[in-house]
């Protein structure tokens, strides 16, 4: 019960919460690894030293399975399951890299990039930057068919909280903030409003963060992988939105 809290390590994100359970041995890219039953394949891969890119997964939050970049192949199973939501099984054989996986991950990342401000990528040090490095895609080509599509680059820029901003242009709708507010803080101040492409993170009943029930605990900021929620203190000259986008 306490591994999920006590086995967390600074500077390491295992992707899904560590578990207490009987040891289960599997192989990831041929490397044998033993983890507690109930652990995810993503966590096992991390312990085996195999880096699986991820965006919506964090070891402080329950697996969610929305970003679809942690896909893997598992011997004997159809398709490309998300490693974060797939629990380990004894004897399981996992592959974290293949041409198809690389292609799918690139394809998903291109979808993200098609609605992300281009100017916020170079020089950034967010988890999104790390994932882009791992997948090996950093921008859409100038003639990419996804360019000039619908986007959220003119979305809400909420500066109401004295300590952090919410910039919807950089929001990848991974729900980590929403989940952190629920699972870690327990305030339930954030939610996803709308459906599909129109899904957006909102505070309270579509209020500003300051007016909402948000208690500014910072869990959402801590959880955000793309700097859509970020401390104002990191912008000495004040926060400004990027003026260029890929969209």
């Amino acid at each position, binding site marked *: *019960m*306490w591994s999920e*809290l*006590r086995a*967390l*390590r*600074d500077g390491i994100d295992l992707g899904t919460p560590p578990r207490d359970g009987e040891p289960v041995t599997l192989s990831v890219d041929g490397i044998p690894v033993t983890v507690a039953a109930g652990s995810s394949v993503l966590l096992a891969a991390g312990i085996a030293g195999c880096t699986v890119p991820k965006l919506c997964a964090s070891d*402080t939050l329950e697996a969610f399975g929305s970003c679809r970049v942690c896909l893997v192949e598992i011997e004997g199973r159809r398709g490309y399951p998300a490693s974060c939501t797939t629990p380990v099984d004894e004897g399981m054989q996992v592959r974290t890299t293949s041409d198809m996986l690389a292609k799918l991950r690139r394809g998903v990342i291109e979808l993200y990039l098609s609605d992300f401000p281009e*100017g*916020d990528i*170079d*020089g*950034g*040090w967010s988890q999104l930057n790390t994932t882009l490095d791992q997948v090996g895609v950093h921008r859409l080509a100038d003639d990419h068919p996804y360019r000039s599509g619908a986007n959220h680059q003119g979305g809400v820029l909420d500066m109401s*909280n*004295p*300590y*952090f901003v919410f910039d919807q242009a950089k929001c990848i709708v991974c729900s980590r903030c929403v989940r952190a507010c*629920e*699972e*870690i*803080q*327990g*305030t*339930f101040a954030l939610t996803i409003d709308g459906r599909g492409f129109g899904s957006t993170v909102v505070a309270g009943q579509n209020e500003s963060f*300051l007016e909402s029930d948000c*208690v*500014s*605990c*910072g*869990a959402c900021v*801590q959880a955000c992988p793309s*700097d859509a929620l*970020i*401390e104002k*203190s*990191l*912008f*000495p000259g004040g*926060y*400004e*939105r*990027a003026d260029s986008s890929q969209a």
Partner: protein
Amino acid sequence: MPIPVKPDQSTITTCAYCGVGCGFKAETSGGQIVRMTPWKEGKANHGHSCVKGRFAFDYYRHPDRVRSPMIRVSIEDPWREVSWDEAFAHAAGELKRIQETYGSGSVGAVSSSRCTNEEIYLMQKFARVGLRNNNIDNCSRICHSPTQFGLSATLGAGAASQHFDSILRSDVILVVGANPTEGHPVFGSMMKRSVRRGANLLVIDPRRTETVDSPHCRASVHLALRPGTNVLVLDSIAHVVVTERLYDEAFVRARCDWDDFELWMSQVGDARYSPDVVGPEAGLEPDDIRELARRYAAGPNSTIYYGLGVTEHSQGSTGVMCLGNLAMACGMIGREGVGVNPLRGQGNVQGGSCLGSWPHMFTGYRFVTDAATRAVFENEWKIDLDGEPGLRLPNMFDAAVAGSFKGLYIQGEDPVQSDPNRHHVEAALRNMECVIVQDLYETETTKFAHVLLPGSSSLEKNGTFTNAERRVSMVRKIVEPVAGLEDWEITVGMINAMGYELKYDHPSEVLDEIARTSPAYSGMSFELIERVGSVQWPCNTAAPEGTEVLHTVTFPRGKGSFMLTEYVPTKERVDDRFPLLLTTGRILSQYNAGTQTRRTANNAWYDDDVLDISADDAAQRGLRNGDRVRVASRYGETELSITVSGRVHPGVVYTTFHFAHTMVNAVTSDLNDWATNCPEYKVTAVEVTKVTKVGKVTKVTS
């Protein structure tokens, strides 16, 4: 380009705000703190944080900081900046002069729970070797002194029996007089997590707080008792446990003094504590009392968390004993998921209690009247020690008003704002000849000071804090102290100036001294804490890396002792003139006297104390939301704005005490706990009347 600044350095430290003691990474760029992020390996917070620790750190570079030692002869004089040496020499000279004139016991010291264990220890050492008396107290006097008293009496250790994570193993959580989601937010989140996983939440609190009802976390029983009836209601719960035979006889027989248990049963089993009798007096449904008692006793693992709503009463210590009794009777102590746990307010208030900063005790809760304990310190310090208890802080003020107490060295406290019956405190300070205040800013109290020593914030020094779960964690220097000295160095300077020579090169040497002299800390060292992250005392050869759960085999006092907890109503009563009961508390975004948080952007959420009043009481007085009102008690009055709130019952009003200008403690009573003199902040009879013009706050006679 909106690329965020990337910090160039990151240092792990411990938050100094509340008693949760969260681990943080202080990230700096070019020597300035640019961000505080919660440390995933922090054992109290596991990577979580609240608005204060996470964001409200700018106070350290606020222009109001005191940047140089200053002295003045009279409090009417302007301050004069001086060197550290001159300040020490002046302060010590004054204290010595006063002692020569008025006697050894005419001066004293107060330590701060904002300071490190090492600094608190040095303050009591200052009193004992510098002043050569036991006139040393600490701020838990006004918050959790009854905890130390009441839990020591029943269980034998005046501290939380559990670690925070233990609550995830609880089936039933009883919260008494505490509002963790506001006061101890990171623990509050853990509590909510446990409730979301199925734990049953029971709350005893006059107000319908966030803890009682919030999304996906609702108390199954809420006893909204009338302020001041804690002991009555807790005895009634015990009555149900006894009369319905819900107690754990095997546990009591094995672990507790059976004779005292029988004595206790005959007391609380009496019909005067039956829910049918108690309910009407406490404003409760009798069946709700029964339901709460049955659920608590049913467990299987029931735990108690309580706060100042238990302690800050004229029967505060008795209330704590009630909780100790209840846990022992139901066998809810000594394993994971159970226990009795005070939610302590300040970052190091547990340290304030542990480190001998008491007029009657040395470190580890050992009496000064005990010759063997004295010998340990006499041997360590090479000096004869006073074997009689000294004055407690309220008694120091009493004595000052009476004219027999003339000098006080205050480390990081603002008693004028924090302590009850402000007029009495002001009169006491005005009567003193030398008030030395060591603080970050000028405060209400520094108005009465003769020497002002620039304190260092917890971001500016090295040392350790002990949180509300007995966890000793490292505080590390992130930036240099504004005036060059860390607080412990200032106190060392004062001790030396008093004529007792000592020298430490590093606070770790102070902790080593604590370990040498204090059994519960005997295994503690900076090296150990560095290695394992943090350590819960007791830490000794039997528990080389500390102890998570207390009382697993025996109680420190041997057999657990059931104390008799007769209900004695407070003398503070409502009448026609003062028909409402005022109770006080705190809010998430502000911290205690607000000294730090008021100097941050946290004011965006809460920039003034407001008075919560029920719709009934507001209507009777012709009041509407936002109206300014005069709040008057038998002790004084002040002005506040009101919020008409469903959180308080008719007959009860509530406010926070975070802002200096609202002077809430001009209204609160000077009644206090029978055992520890902890003030009865939680019950004051008041009347609320509308004021038409926003005027200057006026004072009345007390």
